[in-house]
């Protein structure tokens, strides 16, 4: 594929992620941190996020299965998870986290479970999209990705 075409495609992918609400302003912050010294900074962060948060996801899953559910603990796990998700700009995921915490405060176990399912969906969807995005970016080359238009 032609380079400029790839650039355009990458730019479109990126724009779609923002327009569709998958990412928010914080992602831009990460992009701005990327420089020559750390040309793959954003990808590294996102990879780290998915690796670390999988543990949180597991904890929450297990905690949800318990009966009775410990909402304090669930809320605490989710708080942590929300913090990470928001730091990479995962907008939809973050929204589900907030919703989940609301249900925790209410002690609504069913609500929590439902929201968590939704959350996991958003989480995986974003992961796939970002993987594709970074793959393309790597193809183009680090320098170009660092200077892609905002």
């Amino acid at each position, binding site marked *: 594929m032609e380079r400029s075409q790839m650039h355009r495609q990458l730019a479109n992918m990126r724009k779609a992620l923002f327009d569709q609400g998958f990412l928010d302003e914080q992602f831009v912050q990460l992009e701005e941190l990327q420089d020559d010294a750390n040309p793959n900074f954003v990808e*590294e962060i996102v990879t780290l996020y998915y690796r670390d948060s999988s543990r949180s996801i597991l904890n929450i899953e297990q905690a949800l299965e318990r009966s009775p559910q410990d909402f304090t603990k669930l809320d605490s796990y989710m708080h942590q998870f929300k913090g990470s998700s928001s730091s990479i700009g995962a907008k939809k995921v973050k929204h589900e986290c907030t919703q989940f915490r609301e249900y925790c405060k209410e002690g609504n176990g069913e609500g929590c479970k439902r929201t968590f399912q939704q959350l996991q969906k958003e989480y995986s969807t974003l992961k796939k999209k970002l993987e594709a995005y970074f793959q393309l970016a790597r193809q183009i080359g680090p320098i170009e990705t660092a200077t892609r238009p905002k």
Partner: protein
Amino acid sequence: MNLVSQTAKSMSMPNSSVSWKSGEPDPFPAGLRVLVVDDDPTCLMILEKMLLNCLYEVTKCNRAEMALSLLRENKNGYDIVISDVHMPDMDGFKLLEHIGLEMDLPVIMMSADDGKSVVMKGVTHGACDYLIKPVRIEALKNIWQHVVRKRKHEWKDIEQSGSIEDGEQQQKQTDDADFSSSANEGSWRKRRKDEEDQVEDRDDTSALKKPRVVWSVELHQQFVAAVNQLGIDKAVPKKILELMNVPGLTRENVASHLQKYRLYLRRLSGVSQHQSGLNNSFGGPPDATFGSVSSFNGLDLQALAATGQIPAQSLATLQAAALGRSTTKSGISVPLMDQRNLFSFEGPKLRFGEGSQQPQQSNNNNKQINLLHGIPTTMEPKQLANLHQSAQQSFRGMNMQVNNAHGNQSSSLLVQMSQPPQSRPQILNDTNVNHLSRLPSSLPQPTLSGGMPSSAALARNGMVDNARGAVYNSVSQASSMVDFSITQNTDLPGNSFPLANNPSAITSKGVLREEVNSEMKGSRGFAPSYDIFSDLHQHKSQDWELQNVGLAFNASQHSNMQGCLDVQPSVLVHQGFSSNQNSLQNRNTSVGKVMFSAGEESGHGNAHNIDQQLNTFVADNSLIKAESLPEASCQNMLFPEQFTQEDLMSILLKQQEGLGQVANEFGFDGYPLDDLPV
């Protein structure tokens, strides 16, 4: 990913306070040495990169304990610390306290939580800023201002300590010294600006850098002894320095430490007032009595007498008792000692830190100490002595003041307490804080501080007095007391005191005492059912803690708090609130451990169970205490803190044991405080 103490240096500079070479233009704030602590590796990495982009020197750390040891190892290795609030191994606020006490570095808190209460907590614990996650780089670009601000403040201390004790600078210094923290922050910053204008030629902040003094346990003990010797009112840095006679210590070191100490005391007094108030309202006479008695150490008694609320005779009795008591503390020493040993933190620092953040707590400590003095509890002399000594050492001066403040409040509270419950709602409605603050004043009971085993007994006793508050008070007091004793293993035997200060603690003490002394029960109608009591305690501790917070506020508002309390009511309230909670929580954490041992000693080793119960109860209690106690907010804060309950319980247990003895000695059949004019 192991991110422990990785250091990324943007500039290779020697690890010294002056990081730039002479002759070159000052690159500040570049090269600012930042330590960032966060258990989330993603956030940690992002922060590190952002800080590097700001040209700071970054060390990242994913564990609070690691961060503390890093800071301790490199006394002057860092300029500023950024820490997350929620961390698995240690509460961020606790870390904040430690750093403030030990290293006196500016600390910025961060959290995804932007709730007002949490932010307020940061303020009261002494954080110089609070960032909401996700953090943007713009927010980090200006963190150097906190370093400069602190330096300038210290610089001012140096200048002022130099020769100008009076004069226009004195005023400024006084403002600083009063340290109304957030309350005066506005004016403080303004002063800063003025100072900055004045010292333009000193804009090279490197000149303001001084080697940091680490306030070790021994050093802090000396400091406290000096302060107590001088009296908190007269404790000026210069004289303290002379008394301490520590080579290499500068007046400004002492001045800044004194500020923190005062803040700590303020917090304690706020809490203690809180507790005593609670006691009053809840406790039947015994509680009230105890509360007031406890706070009647010296000054308190005088204060109360002065206010005419306490019969002169009772005051005298209390005083005598207290004095007699103070010499008899020894029994408690064992548990206390154990507790102390458990505290790896610099003892004084720890206590101080906890206390400093929560003036209420410090008050408690003070009060407790006083209490011990005044109340001839039957506590084992050793215990009492320990408590007393520790309390005295650290808080003697402060106690006096605090007690006075509390005393006043407690007397008023007592009065209220003796009133029918209706009055309580009034009091409560008066801003929960008021109510709370009043309670604590009456709460400080020496016996509790002694960590007397009686407290445990009390906890067990289901003192089902209709004055639930009292029970709660005692419970919380017990906990508060215990907490303190534990934390202040070295300097403050009064650790137990702080707990007593907590309204809850105080009540528990009162309750405990009653329980222990069968005679006491009569008037109260406390049912010596241990189970119930423990339940109540649990609830109460929770409530009390909240109440304590509220009370703490009141206490501060009352400006009964003598000495350094120059807190504006609104500010205090919040501070007291959060600090109360924090302190309780913090203390609980540390105390919790100790408490277990203490609790075990008293035979109530099941602090943990108690905690659980407490947790349950607290929730219930909060419902029960619909009365305007600002429990709602407090509770929210407190409830998540499992430790609090545990601590409370342990304290209660200990207090119960101690109280029983105390009560006996006092021979309080009726409670003189009952007669206090309303």
